[in-house]
Structure formats: structure tokens, C-alpha cells
């Protein structure tokens, strides 16, 4: 049996508190109205979740390869994340932050982490890797997605990273009231789920990789 939680669109209801408010006091509450309200709430949970997470103007002439400075593999999972950004021949590395990662409505699926960039390779292949993990240095076991290009002119490349609920991490939030000494007890504490994102840029042959208009956003799974 197919189960439905939302019609997939926002269905307008009369203004809350107004004379025609369907939820106003002493009005009959039909299941059909609850069905519409449930559909809207589920739809809003899904749609509100999809958002821009990060943007970066881009990297210019990155000539670092995956075999840099003692790394003997050209596999992207061995990306030289610890490189000092200023050394000659460095790959590009950016910490793209920690981001709330919640399910796509009640589906249990997580939104797709989508990386999109204009990308070109001045020789060799240009590569961009996006890694999601719990905040430590990226490891080969972490989830990742790669976009690449051999184009000599900028072209749009987009990749997606599908995570499962086992790939997200808990963050305790306990904001304290700071206007007293010592600070007051946390108000509205809670726990949300997050992932940390890392972006790496390289060139396969030590030629020049350039990226522009890099964004990471959440898309529907």
C-alpha cells in the first residue's frame, strides 16, 4: 500500500486568527482539514530543510596533485588534507563548516549534499572532492563525492553526496544566559545532528585547476 504524507505542494488555508480560520474555536474539526494541515507541515519540513550551506569564490591555478609530498597513491581518498596552503604545488583545501543535517521530512532519507562549481583544467584533469564526516581530519572511510573536468574553459559540474542517518553526528546545544555572573542556566537546550564538510581541489598532472562560484547546498533526495 502506498502511503502519502504530503501532496507535495503548499495548500493555502484561511489566515490564522481571521474570521475564516479553519482552526478557530468552536468549529468542527474535520479529518480532511487535518489531512491538509498535515500535508502542509510535512511539505514545509521538507522544503525548509533545503538550503545553501557554503559558498566560495573559487581556487585559481591549483597545481597540487594527489601524490604530493610523500603520498604515493593517486586515489582521492588519500587526498593530502594537511598540506600547508602556502607551499608551492599545494592542493586547495577548505573547511566548509559544520551543518545541521536532518531528514527530508518524515521520509528518513537525508537531503543530498550537493556541490556545484564552474571548473576548468589547464591541462590534466581538474578534480574537486567533497567529504562529510564527524569533524576530524577526513579519513578514507568517510563519505565523499568527486566532480572533475578536463575542459580548458569553465564548465558547470555538480556532484551529490547521499548520507544515511548513520553518517550524522550529535551536537549538544546549551546556550547559557550571559547577562549574569556566573551565567544562568541554559535555556532551550537540545541536541541536533550535524556533519562537517571539507572541500579539496587538485589537478591530476600538476597543471592548473581553477574553480569559480563554488556552492554547497541541500537538494531533495
Amino acid at each position, binding site marked *: 500500500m502506498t502511503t502519502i504524507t504530503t501532496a507535495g505542494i503548499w495548500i493555502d488555508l484561511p489566515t490564522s486568527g481571521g474570521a475564516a480560520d479553519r*482552526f478557530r474555536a468552536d468549529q468542527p*474539526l474535520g479529518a*480532511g482539514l487535518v489531512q491538509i*494541515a*498535515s500535508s502542509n*507541515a510535512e511539505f514545509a519540513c521538507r522544503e525548509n530543510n533545503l538550503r545553501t550551506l557554503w559558498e566560495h569564490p573559487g581556487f585559481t591555478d591549483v597545481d597540487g596533485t594527489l601524490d604530493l609530498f610523500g603520498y604515493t597513491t593517486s586515489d582521492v581518498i588519500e587526498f593530502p*588534507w*594537511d598540506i600547508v596552503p602556502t607551499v608551492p604545488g599545494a592542493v586547495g583545501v577548505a573547511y566548509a563548516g559544520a551543518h545541521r543535517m536532518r531528514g527530508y521530512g518524515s521520509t528518513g532519507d537525508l537531503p543530498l549534499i550537493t556541490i556545484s562549481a564552474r571548473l576548468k583544467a589547464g591541462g590534466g584533469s581538474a578534480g574537486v572532492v567533497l567529504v562529510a564526516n564527524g569533524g576530524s581530519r577526513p579519513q578514507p572511510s568517510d563519505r565523499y563525492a568527486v566532480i572533475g573536468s578536463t575542459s580548458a574553459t*569553465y564548465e558547470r559540474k555538480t556532484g551529490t553526496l547521499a548520507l544515511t542517518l548513520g553518517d550524522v553526528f550529535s551536537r549538544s546545544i546549551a546556550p547559557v544566559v550571559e547577562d549574569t555572573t556566573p551565567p544562568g542556566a541554559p535555556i532551550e537546550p537540545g541536541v541536533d545532528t550535524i556533519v562537517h564538510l571539507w572541500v579539496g581541489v587538485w589537478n591530476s598532472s600538476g597543471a592548473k585547476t581553477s574553480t569559480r562560484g563554488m556552492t554547497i547546498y541541500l537538494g531533495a533526495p
Partner: protein
Amino acid sequence: MTTRSRDLTTPALYSQTRPSRGTVQASQSAALAELANDAAGGHPAQRATVLRTVGGTYHCYIWPDTTAIYYAVRVTASWRTAPVFNASSVTLAVTDGTTTVGPGASVYLPRNLLAPIHPGVSGARLVDFETREVFVQRDSLVAAGLSPSVPWRFTFVVTTVATYVEAIEIAEVSRFATDTADTYGADPDYYQPRSIIDDNVVSIGATLEAAYDLQRRTYHAVSLDEGAHDDVTSGTYAPIPGSQLESAGVASRWQVRPRLMGGVPEVQFGVRYRTTGAHTGGVRITTGAGTYTLTLPTTSGAWVDDFTGVGYLAQTTTDEIYWEAFSSAGTMHIASYWIVETP
């Protein structure tokens, strides 16, 4: 004021169990209240990022008129060229354009932010990352005199010794409670099994409206060091050299995911800018829906925020945005770009 804490859950409510002309059960209303709360407060979408820096002054922007009441501020630092003794310091000031809180110690701002951050010195840069996370409370800033009806500017001043600040992130935090002081929020406890559904159900409608109206998605937030701004010299609209340029004469294009709640997504946009002399300028964005301009009056050397541009995004699952600008004479400097949803 009565609060009821809630976990971040999204219950599944199947339409088949609520057929038209059927009878509503109290348990169904309880689940609906929880789902509406999650829709309204569980997925706030404003944020901004300051990218890797060795120092400077950066401005980020957030509208305080959403359901979020906290902003998480995360500063991450690591050593720069060698793992030696080091430090990163960040100050925060928040203003609505009239009243300013900070920088420096303030009872309205998290004091933990002010202590220097000392990344590790093990030798592996990413292993040595050190992050400090604090939470800025919206209501504290309102109590300090900031207006909740205009955008707020968060100014970060970064200084470093042998370190990079790898990122400064600011983002709205989900709600972990319903509060009777809010105009929205539905308490599931009103709907006990086998009990009647009373007029508390009114709050569900208001909460659903908050899920639609009291949300803003940041589509684009580029914050440059005020001392390393983009420069506009073209006398007619042209791609902006610097952060917004793909290649000579070609503007960078940023892909975003429009919020598709019905109708064409509306945005407001603008920049933090200054004109070097008594001349004017302008910026415009082009999206899949059209091109939208914002005329910028002279500032005669002073930095000014102007986010009064109005535009629209394509009503599709992805859209591309690019910026262009002109300066009627001399040079116009731009330090921040911001595009945010108008719900």
C-alpha cells in the same frame, strides 16, 4: 511565558488515516502539533561563512524576524606555516544600524568568544584544528536595544599570530521548545488520547503559518575583508572583478536551491559598499527569473549597507545567480554580498 521542550523529530502523518469526513482523534492532533512545530522551528536556513583568513574585518548579515532565537557562531583555527605557539582572536559586534552591541565584553554577547584560540601543534594541520562554538541569543540583543525588524550586521574582527582562522560560521539554530510567548507553537500535550480537542487547536494554524512566513533562506553570503574588497570601476553594468569574476568579462555564476513554497521565490539583495568620491553606483543580480537592479547612492568614502534590492528566483529546483555593478565615476568598493529570501 510557558515553555515545553521538544526533540527534533518529524512524525510521519499518513493521509490515509485522515480521510475526508472522518473523525479526528486527539492523538492525531498531537502528532500534527509536533509536525507543525518541526516545520516552523526545526529547519531555520540563514547562515554565513567567513573563509580562511589571517586577519581582517568581515561582515555577515541575518534577519532576526524568523523563528530562530539563537545563532551558532563557530570559529575554527589552525596553524599557518609551522606548528609553533600561536593564537587566533576574534571579536564580534552586532548592530541593527542604530544600536551596536560589542565588540569586546558585553553582557549581551557570549563572553567565551573573546578568549584567544590556540590550535594544536602536533604537526598535522587538520588534526590541530581548534574550534570554539558560542551561541548568540536574539532576545538578549533585542533587550540591548536592537530592532528585530531590520537585518542585523555581525562584524567579526580577526587577528592572528602564526595561524589561520580557517572559517567563521554563523547559522540559525533550531528551536528546542515551544513558548507561549511566541505567536506560534503548538503544545502536543493538549491532545491526550481519548480526550477532547479543545480550542488550543487554534495554535496549529498559526504554527503552520510560521512554517511558511517566518523563514528566510540565505541564498548567497560572500563576506570579504573590508581591507581587501572588490573594486568596481566600470561606468556601465559589468562583471565585478574579484570574488564575483569567473574570467575576463564573465561573471561568476552561483547555483542555489530556491525555496519552492508556491509562487515565484522572492529575494532581497544588496551589498556593503562605499564610493571613493561623491559619485553613485549600482549593483544588479541576474537569476533565472530576470535581472534586478539596486541603485547605490554616494557614500563619499563611508561604508554603507544597502540591502533594499528586490528580485526573484526561477521557480525550479536549481537556479543560477550572478552579480554585476557599475560606478558612475571613480571606484566603488564592495565588501559583502547578500541575497536572502523574502518569505
